[in-house]
């Protein structure tokens, strides 16, 4: 397929992505636009990216714009991503939260860029594996993503052959998933532990509530400087005092927040201070 594209067309798509989702795509990553839009161009019978941009700008086809932006968003994820950090999360970090909440026996967790839901499912499975420890506790997991397509897939809890082979131990696959044709379907009890909604982390107008733990891994790198500030404002606002933020193992908070302090004992975790 001819995927001819002028630099201007790629800039227009990149700007549109930032306007609608808050995510930026530097010119070094423009290749991503070309590769991710090939199937859309085939579906809509559009010969090249210049023509596709013309059609989007003519405003004739709103679903084309949505489909393109959804395709460009990076939905890369896997189960139990970053084993060592995940073990910290489901071990000592949750234990510390549990100790703080013994009276209420109520914990709220937010997976803020959940993609197809693997992160929240991994968390729900880890909690189920320790069901005795969490007996009598109410643990609410909220999963959000800027992509409607991602949320709609996450809600289904159905994963393909390759997805279930990314990070998920085989014993847990057999225990918590059912084979459906070529795919694997997560147990409804696990899915029922999670609430899903479409939400843009850089949107300061909507408040999703207060949490004891927010997971925001490998997403902030896609935001512009201004949007990173907005995202951190939202995260700060949504964390209870002494609550935790989990970031990707290669990410740091930099100068974006003075209300979040790195946890000395838990690498990759930050604690909301009392400011």
């Amino acid at each position, binding site marked *: 397929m001819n995927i001819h594209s002028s630099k201007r067309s790629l800039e227009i798509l990149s700007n549109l992505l930032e306007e609608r989702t808050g995510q930026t795509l530097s010119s070094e990553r423009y290749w991503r636009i070309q590769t991710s839009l090939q199937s859309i161009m085939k579906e809509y019978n559009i010969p090249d990216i210049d023509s596709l941009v013309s059609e989007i700008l003519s405003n004739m086809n709103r679903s084309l714009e949505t489909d393109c932006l959804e395709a460009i968003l990076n939905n890369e994820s*896997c189960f139990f991503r970053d*084993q060592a950090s995940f073990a910290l999360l489901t071990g000592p970090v949750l234990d510390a939260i549990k100790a703080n909440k013994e009276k209420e026996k109520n914990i709220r967790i937010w997976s803020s860029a959940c993609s197809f839901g693997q992160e929240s499912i991994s968390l729900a499975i880890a909690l189920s594996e320790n069901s005795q420890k969490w007996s009598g506790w109410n643990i609410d997991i909220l999963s959000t993503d800027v992509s409607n397509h991602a949320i709609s897939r996450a809600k289904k809890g159905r994963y393909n*052959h*390759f997805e279930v*082979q*990314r*990070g998920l*131990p*085989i*014993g847990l*696959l*057999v225990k918590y998933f059912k*084979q459906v044709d070529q795919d694997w379907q997560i147990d409804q009890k696990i899915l029922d532990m999670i609430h899903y909604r479409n939400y843009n982390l850089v949107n300061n107008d909507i408040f999703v509530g207060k949490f004891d733990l927010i997971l925001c891994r490998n997403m902030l790198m896609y935001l512009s400087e201004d949007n990173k500030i907005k995202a951190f404002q939202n995260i700060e606002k949504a964390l209870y005092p002494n609550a935790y933020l989990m970031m990707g193992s290669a990410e740091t908070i930099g100068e974006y927040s003075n209300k979040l302090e790195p946890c000395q004992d838990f690498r990759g975790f930050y604690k909301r201070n009392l400011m």
Partner: protein
Amino acid sequence: MRSCLIVDDSKVIRKVARHILETMDFEVYEAGDGQEALNSCLEFKHDVILLDWNMPIMSGMDFLKKYRQSNSNNDAKVIFCTTENGIGHIQAAISAGADEYVMKPFDRTTLESKLQIVGCS
């Protein structure tokens, strides 16, 4: 250097798996069936065994049972790597002592992920 024995009657699969494993700094050995694999295990101590199910002479399942029952040198991590993707086969493999299970077709990321799960990445 960690060592991995690839047991598969397909030369193509052995070649693909060897390529991935060598780029991960594994020392790679090959066997075309379960009997050859048992012989290799008598001679060398492997850290991981990547094991096909259906092979001539001795199947992967028969190899696994004999290997786990042997008196010594029987503790390599065994990862089944097979087109037998049904849940019954997976459960049988786990019961027989497999540590992980790769459903074919597989790619580099799948293999890397499974090696990480068994602590051999």
